[in-house]
């Protein structure tokens, strides 16, 4: 609701959308590099900006069943990864509320 400008991040390393350069996350909020997405290597982040979240659905992943939402770039609508709403396995619950961005869809921006 209402008009908003996209958020702009600051820091040593800023990841942006490879298609439209929209700022998405900084290396400061990166939790792990050890994830895999549909396009290969993916990163887990505490927080990302300038994304739109899709509808939740359950997906069976290598680490068990999760409720996730696809996340889209707010400017170009590219699917960039997903957000974990819920992890069914107790050992995986640290991911809840966190975001996956696919490395191949990211680019360093200023």
């Amino acid at each position, binding site marked *: 609701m*209402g*008009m908003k*400008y996209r*958020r*702009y991040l600051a820091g*040593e390393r*800023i990841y942006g959308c490879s298609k439209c350069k929209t700022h998405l996350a*900084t290396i400061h*909020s990166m939790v792990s590099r050890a994830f895999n997405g549909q396009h290969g290597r993916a990163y887990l982040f505490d*927080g990302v900006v300038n994304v739109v979240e899709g509808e939740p659905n359950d997906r069976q992943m290598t680490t068990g069943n999760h409720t996730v939402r696809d996340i889209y770039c707010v400017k170009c609508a590219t699917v960039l990864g997903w957000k974990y709403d819920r992890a069914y396995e107790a050992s995986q619950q640290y991911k809840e509320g966190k975001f996956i961005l696919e490395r191949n869809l990211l680019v360093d921006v200023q």
Partner: protein
Amino acid sequence: MRIPESDNNLSTSYDFAPEAGPSYVTLDKAGHSNGLSKENGHTIPVSNGTTSNGSPSMGNGIAKHNSSIARVSLPGTTLYDDAYVDREEFVRLVIQSLKDVGYIESAATLEAESGYSLEAPEVTQFRQHILHGAWAHAEPLLIQLGVTDEDALMDARFLIGKQKYLELLEAQKTTAALQVLRNDLAPYSTTSEQDELHALSSLMMCSDPEDLRRRSCWDGASGTSRRQLLADLQHYIPASIMIPQRRFSTLLAQSRLYQRNRCLYHNSPANPISFSLFSDHMCEKDAFPRITTTILEVHTDEVWNVAWSHDGTHLASASKDKTAIIWRIGPDAEPSSRDCIAEFILRDHPYCVGCLAWSLDDSILSTSADHLILLWNTKTGALIKTLETHAETVSALVWLPDGSGFMSASLDRKIVLWDMDGELRESWNDISIRVTDAAVTPDMTRLVAVGMGYIPPPTSGSLSRGHVRESSPPPVASNGNGNTIAPRSSENRMIVYDLKTRQVELSVHMEGELTSVKISDDSRFALINHAPDEIHLWDLEEFQLARKFTGQRQGHHVIRSCFGGIDGNFVISGSEDRNVYVWHRDTGALLEVLEGHGQGSVNSVAWNPCNRRMFASCSDDSTIRVWEAPPISAGELFRGLSIPESEPEIVGKGKGKVKQPWAHNYETL
């Protein structure tokens, strides 16, 4: 009642009295007693015989009057028993006014009847000498007129000498002028006047009188310069001896200004109709545009911005639905029958539309869609050009007041100047903020930009790649949508640039997001929307915050405000609580909270530049509302009826034209 001798009197007076100048016809009276009435009290009229010490040459006609008009003797010295107004001062001002407009006979009668005269004969003579360029006669009178202070006398003589010098030069009597410079000016000039003396002597080089007048900013002996000299000399002569020109009118103008400043709903032009002397001026609250007369519904998503054409006949709107619309707002007839149609729907925007700006002649509309700028022909609705220079969202489009083109500003930290055809003229790169809005002062001296401070990436890598977690910022907050908000990365700033030199004149850090800048018509004030919930009025001459306007809601969205009404008397703003807020600019008083828009934010407002009683607002509810004063009849009706407060409903749909009956009572604070 006509006095027999009056014709004679009139004819002599007209020789001298130009239309506006105080007449020299005067009753005779010792000059200096004029200003010293208070001690003498009401005995003055009695003791101050009008025939005894008059100057015979001028008193002739009037002396006859005196024989036929009885002097009225009044007690006390004040106009009324309980007032501070000194009667003599008052009467003399009346006499001055009468003479100014040409009621010479009435003035003479009043002088005779009251025993007060406008001024001493020396004053009259002095004025005539100045106006006739009889400098040698004027100068010796200065002392008699109470210019006794040595410095004042020197200054006054310098002023007279300067006029004399310029007039001689104008008459091309260079030798005589040189003598004046040596004998009259140089001896009287103080050190501070040395520069002026130099400038004056350089005027000797002027090729002809026209050149002289232009270079000295002086309009010649036959222009207003002698009158101006008189006004300048006034500073050295006590006002009680030589009353300042048009003094009564000055007082009335002050009174008008006072009344105007107290008029919260002021929105009427300064004319005799709205400012009668017979009653205090006060604009009717009912004349304020607080009623929705039209709702424009064609957009299919949130409307983010609105802008009026300069001729006030068209309104442009920008929407999240990736279109802009040019609306024709029918002529200012009966609002209830006004035709408002969507003339062109500008569809070819790849992204949501954020900014709108009309060219000075209204032939081109520029719009912004994210990082793109689009130029549209407003007569055909055709896309002229798309400009792709900016890398990030374009946040401001401004056509320059000198007609040279337009300016764009962006979150990519660039401000770009374009010519009329959309060719890039100049680009200011790497400015210190990501610009969220910008405006140029109408006098073209300044550019005011607001935005988010840019923090360049650190050069030394303090971050160890292996310890990502340790260097992560404090926990991020959630905004309730499940969206996490990253830590704020920037400070916000207002920057005032000198437009020509690009030098930063002022840079102010501000807490909270800045989303809108507007400049007042006089180039003096900048109006800035400021989250949370404030609008700041900055004085660009004093470089300080002049006023804050509060009441509206602004958290995370781009909310815009503007000046409105005659002289920009109002400030209006959108708000995230779906209302339109209106304040009195000079006091900050909240005047109106206008309800009507549906769910969401009122994103922007725009006052009609031609019809000062109309503005438009746009909202997340996909509509634009046009606000006007209720017609008189409906206004009358309103007072008589009690209308239950109700949520104003939107009547009709989809045709882009909806008439709003006068049926809603908008709540006012």
